[in-house]
Structure formats: structure tokens, C-alpha cells
């Protein structure tokens, strides 16, 4: 009995991964074959990009502030508080800006995609769309995937900028250090590979967030309770996958762009 349960679970996992891979691939390639719903792409960009701006600005700003506080405390032991700006900017741009934005946008948008599409599935709206001759993959999924990729890239840049500003605010107003020195160090030690590292990540994270959110939404069964389950799965899996993929990307990029 236990063996059968393990076998069934393993098969389910493999099937889910297979279904997700096909789903995510179709969502991606749909942009290169008509019809393409550009209006939906713009609407989703507004919902995902502009809608997520406040949480990204706030989380970026305060993360930069915390980084500045923590690093200044440690660096002062070595008499190196002058490099706080370098520490904050490199950490935000190379790593934290993208990951933090990814997690925040995942919490906000993967959940909303899963619940919105899940509700449409359980109320037969997706079937109605198919019956009306419209492909829900093209109409609902592809615009969300590309909008999330594009918007996450821009939101990451915003988070980086506000993170550096948060660090500056703490450095100047709480640690009473020189602001010019902070910005000079933040800018002077930045190299092209650092920026590349930070801007490659959101492309992958955006794809993960939207494809997982839509995948669980479109697979929803079991009424309103099922919508809740899909939402939880979407957020949990998207967040975990973001951290995992971040690890892989870091490993690869450090060997390509040392």
C-alpha cells in the first residue's frame, strides 16, 4: 500500500512537471504566432507594473536602509564605514533588488493570477471562452507572462534605485556620514557585469511568477476551495522556485561574469 502511494505520488509529480513544462513553453511561443492580444498585454503591464510599484518602492527603500544599518555596524569595527555605499549598491544591484522584487511581485501577482484564472475556470468562463473560439492560453496566459517579465525588469531597477536611496538616508540621517562619499562609493565600484547579473535575474523570475500563477489557476478544480488551494500553491511554488533559480543563476553568472 505504501509503495503504491509513493508510486502514485511520484507519477503525479512527474506529470505535473511535464504539464508545467508544456504549458510554460506554449505561453512563451504564442507571442510569435497570431493572434497576439497586445491590448491585454498593456492592461496586464499596468496591473502588474504600476500596481506593484508601491510595495516594490517601500520594500526596496527599507531593505537598503537595513543593509546600511547592518553593514555600518560591522564595517565600523574595521574602520571601513566609508565603503557602506559600495556594499549597499552592490548587494542591491547584484542580488537583493531582483530577488526581493521577485518575491514581492510573486506574493502579489502569482496569487492574483491563480485566483483570477481559477475563479474563471470553476465558473466555466474559461470553457465559455474556448466555446467562443478564443484560445485562453493566448488571451489570458501569454499576455500575463510577457507583461510580468517586462515589468519585473523595470521594477527591479526601481527597487535597486530606492534601495540605494534608503541606504543613503540611513547613512546620512542615522549614521551621520557623508552622503557624497556614500554615492561616490556606490557608483565608483559598480561594473558592467554587476549590472548584468542584476538584470538577467528578473527575466527568469518574471517568467516563473506568471507561468506558475497561470498554471495553477488554469488547473483549478473543486470550486472556491480549489481556488484557495491553487493560490497557495502558486505563491509557495513561485517563491521557492525563485530562490532556487536565483542560486543556479548566481552559480552560472559568477563563472561567466566573474
Amino acid at each position, binding site marked *: 500500500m505504501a509503495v503504491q502511494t509513493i508510486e502514485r505520488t511520484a507519477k503525479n509529480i512527474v506529470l505535473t512537471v511535464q504539464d508545467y513544462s508544456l504549458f510554460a513553453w506554449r505561453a512563451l511561443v504564442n507571442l510569435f504566432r497570431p493572434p497576439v492580444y497586445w491590448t491585454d498585454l498593456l492592461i496586464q503591464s499596468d496591473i502588474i507594473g504600476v500596481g506593484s510599484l508601491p510595495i516594490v518602492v517601500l520594500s526596496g527603500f527599507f531593505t537598503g536602509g537595513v543593509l546600511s544599518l547592518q553593514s555600518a555596524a560591522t564595517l565600523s569595527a574595521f574602520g571601513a564605514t566609508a565603503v557602506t555605499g559600495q556594499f549597499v549598491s552592490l548587494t542591491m544591484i547584484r542580488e537583493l533588488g531582483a530577488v526581493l522584487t521577485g518575491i514581492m511581485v510573486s506574493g502579489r501577482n502569482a496569487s492574483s493570477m491563480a485566483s483570477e484564472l481559477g475563479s474563471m475556470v470553476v465558473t466555466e*468562463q474559461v470553457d465559455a471562452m474556448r466555446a467562443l473560439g478564443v484560445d485562453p492560453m493566448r488571451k489570458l496566459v501569454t499576455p500575463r507572462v510577457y507583461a510580468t517579465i517586462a515589468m519585473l525588469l523595470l521594477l527591479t531597477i526601481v527597487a535597486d534605485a530606492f534601495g540605494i536611496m534608503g541606504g543613503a538616508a540611513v547613512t546620512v540621517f542615522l549614521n551621520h556620514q557623508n552622503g557624497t562619499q556614500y554615492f561616490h562609493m556606490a557608483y565608483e565600484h559598480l561594473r558592467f557585469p554587476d549590472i548584468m547579473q542584476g538584470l538577467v535575474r528578473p527575466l527568469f523570475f518574471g517568467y516563473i511568477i506568471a507561468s506558475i500563477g497561470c498554471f495553477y489557476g488554469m488547473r483549478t478544480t473543486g470550486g472556491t476551495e480549489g481556488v484557495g488551494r491553487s493560490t497557495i500553491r502558486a505563491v509557495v511554488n513561485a517563491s521557492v522556485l525563485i530562490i532556487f533559480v536565483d542560486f543556479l543563476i548566481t552559480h552560472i553568472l559568477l563563472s561567466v561574469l566573474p
Partner: protein
Amino acid sequence: MTGASLTPASPSPDLNSRPGPVVALRQVAVAFDGPSVFENVSFAVAPGETRVLLGPAGVGKSVLLKLILGLIRPIEGSVELFGQDISHMPEEELFPLRARAGMVFQEGALFDSLSVRDNVAYQLIQELAPDAEIDDRVREALRFVGLEEAFALFPASLSGGMRRRVAIARALIHQPELILYDSPTGGLDPVTSDTIIELIVKQRDVRATPALLVTHRLQDAFTLCTHRFDSEQNRMVPLPEGQTNRSTTFLMLDEGRLIFDGSLHDLLHSDNPFVREFLE
């Protein structure tokens, strides 16, 4: 009703002289991760014909409708829609075929984030039709279902009966070659149910669109058979005593099998114990 002498009403379409069926199911079986929902189901819908699918709740009537549009795939047998076998047809190729049919879902399945206008015009909007044409055609479709005043409303502010009528307008705006009604009167009060059935009779008699209607309400099925739409009076009127609409025929599903396929006369005189029990 049972004792009435039932003869076809005149005029009526001569089904035998028409081209091939709009829908044809042959030895179809459907299953979802378990035993079959139904198997060996075969029937056809001819041009101009209205078929009423009867059966108890949970027997797979709605599944059968979705099967016809390729929203669900059979595990055995073949499904033909507009002369094409869609059993294994790729989803991409199915969309143009589905666009030629109209389906009214059980609860309406209106897009709740869109207004009534945008719901009814959904297909036209996707085809990038001009706004003025869309408005005209939506108003015409809403007039057909008697809901012109709902043009700018959202589904949340509509009653159950109004939602079904909007769903019917959405299914009809494209002048479909086939209409599938999934329990259009389910859960509605008798007056609203009569309004919906009148719309179905109107569509049948005015536009002669072939249809498959799922219901478990015998009263609706008999009304379809014993009434016609009078265009001059703009309302449904009963056929003369003893006459029935010849283009309206019946199917009955029970325990995963199609147990009846025939006219109202055959239904009323069936020896099948379940049919008799269902009728009584």
C-alpha cells in the same frame, strides 16, 4: 399528455431530404480518472433539428455538450462537428469550428469583469469589428432576448434569468450554425423558465438553427414540442391539439448509456422502465 394523438405540426422541416448531420457521435465513451461517465453513445443532430437531451442529474448531460465542442475529448469513438471528426483534432484547429457554434452554459458563464455589451460582443471584439457595428449587433441580440436595457450593466447586477438571457444573446449574436443549451432553465422560477423556453422556440422557428438542449425538466421539453413561435403576435403559442413540432426529438441518458432516441410519440409510448419512471 400521454393519451394524446400526436401528429407532426405543419409546416415542418423534412429531415430526410437534408444534407449530412451537423453533429454526429459514434460509439463515444468518456471517463475522468476512473470508470466511464458514459459509453457507446451514438446519435446525430440534423440541420434544422432540435434535440432535447433528458436524464437525471449527474448522468453526464453537460459532459456530452462539452464533448460536442471538443472542450472534452472522448476516450473511445468519434465526434463529428460540421462534418469534421474533432475527436483528435488539435486545439488550435478547433477554435474556428467552435466559433461557428454557440453554447449557453448552465450558469451563463458570463465574463464578470466585462459589461453586458462586451460579454455579448465578445466574439466581435476579438475579430476587431468596428464599435458602431458592435453596438448595433449587441442591441439587436439583446432585443431578441428582451434585455435591451441591460446594455451597459455588469453581470453582478443581473438576476439569474437575466444572466441566462444575456448568455443566449452572446451565443446567438454570431448567428451560429448550431446552438447547445446546457440546462438553460435550471434553478429558475417558472415564469422566467417560460421566457427562456420561448426564446429557444423563437430561435428554432424563426432562424431554424439546429440545437441540442439539455434539461431534466420534462415540462420544458414538452413545451418545446407542443408550441411554436408566432412572429405576428411576437410570442409563443400552442400548436393545435394533438400536433407536435416534428423537428424536435428526444434523447435520454441513464447510468452511462443512451437509453432512448426518438420522437415525443416514441418517448410517451416507450417500454423502457426508466423512461416510464422518468415520465411519471
